């Protein structure tokens, strides 16, 4: 006697038919261990698709891979290569919105009469969620194909497509390129010539109206307590232009100088 297990969601229906090869559980009932027929209706399909365990396995793999990458925004590096396998179900996000599921006719028991090639199904995000949810409920049901399992795991660095990494690190690349361009421009610029120091020490500042305290170096800011003994007074007037002339009160005491 065949066992039927339906998994019904608003946008997806999976009907499994199979037989049990184990003793039935008193509480949980019979276990569907061998799948004979899978009927699924989802997305914009006009007629349900009918297949077997290969179709179910391929649907689980394709939906898992695409959902994982779509949720994280990190595409699978080998997704293009994997999609070249024409004997498996493929699921890819569309350019604009939604997803497209491609099912090869080899996985179907009955080929739809209106098409020769693989069956193409358009899915919205909600429809994809319902398909994934129906498959997850099936996988979680210990009384339906208990040997069927799926390990959800993150993509490794090697599997993650480099395109995403490039997109995310674009600002870093632009920054590094800007530094390189700026460096090459500055390399071409002539080295500025250092202006020779004035040969004659400038005279005492004519504009200064206040006379510094005896022994105080002109132009030394008040907070600078001890000017270097080696400094000649003639080297400091350049500072005079930016600093106020020290008042006699605020100027360091001559005794403080070494």
């Amino acid at each position, binding site marked *: 006697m065949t066992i039927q297990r339906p998994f019904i969601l608003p946008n997806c229906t999976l009907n499994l038919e199979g037989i049990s090869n184990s003793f039935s559980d008193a509480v949980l009932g019979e276990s569907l261990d061998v799948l004979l027929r899978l009927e699924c209706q989802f997305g914009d399909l006009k007629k349900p698709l009918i297949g077997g365990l290969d179709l179910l396995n391929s649907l689980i793999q394709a939906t898992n891979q695409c959902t*994982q990458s779509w949720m994280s925004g*990190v595409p699978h590096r080998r997704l293009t290569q994997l999609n070249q396998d024409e004997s498996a179900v493929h699921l890819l996000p569309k350019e604009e919105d939604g997803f497209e599921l491609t099912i090869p006719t080899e996985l179907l028991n009955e080929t739809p009469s209106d098409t020769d090639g693989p069956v193409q199904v358009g899915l919205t995000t909600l429809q994809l969620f319902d398909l994934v949810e129906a498959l997850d409920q099936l996988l979680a049901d210990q009384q339906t194909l208990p040997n069927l399992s799926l390990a959800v795991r*993150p993509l490794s660095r090697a599997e993650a497509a480099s395109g995403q990494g490039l997109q995310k690190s674009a600002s870093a690349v632009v920054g590094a390129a800007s530094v390189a361009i700026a460096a090459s421009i500055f390399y071409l610029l002539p080295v500025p010539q250092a202006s020779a120091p004035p040969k004659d020490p400038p005279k005492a500042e004519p504009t200064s109206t206040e006379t510094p305290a005896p022994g105080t170096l002109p132009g030394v800011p008040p907070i600078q307590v001890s000017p270097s003994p080696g400094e000649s007074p003639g080297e400091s007037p350049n500072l005079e232009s930016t600093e106020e002339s020290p008042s006699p009160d605020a100027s360091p005491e001559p005794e403080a100088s070494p």
Partner: protein
Amino acid sequence: MQADSPTEQFTSPILKTLPDPDVPAQVCPRRTRIQLDFVLLAIEALDLYASELMLMSLEELQLQDVIENRVDFWQSRNTNPLRRSHQRDSLSLDKAKALVAVGCHIARRQTAQVRQLLNVQRQLAAKQLTPDHSVPLANYLERFRRHFRSRMNPNRTAIAAYKENERLDELALSLLEQVLFCTGTAGMERFWSSLFDGEVA
């Protein structure tokens, strides 16, 4: 005898359900922290009481040993480097698991609302109408914009990209779709796994 030892620490079953990814130093990478916080932000925009419900569900899910109180919860969220009040603390895997668990727990309560909003959004898009034409959708987007702008640091380049409402609405709708997948039977495992895509050895 060892099982009866009083010093043995209790571990929530949820922490055992989610596997430890092979990440450096066993702390969450930058993208994980950002993505996790953003999805929780979308859940909070769906329900004004979501933050309180998340705090309450810590006890319900026996996770109060991992995230002890409101401050701990707030500090864990602030490990998102794009937040205004970002602190340079690391986010341990256990704390991230606890955040994922409470987020998915609350998201499941919002399943009907999320489905309705996504249905409406699709219908409006088919008619080439903006989301403002639906009051529930406009409310969600408005709350998300308010939460996002009040909590995220506008000086960060990644946040400055969402200066315009249209860009921020796109992010809010994209996160709403992710919240939908968090509500599923294996939603917690799928969400947890997606947080570490391209980050593990």
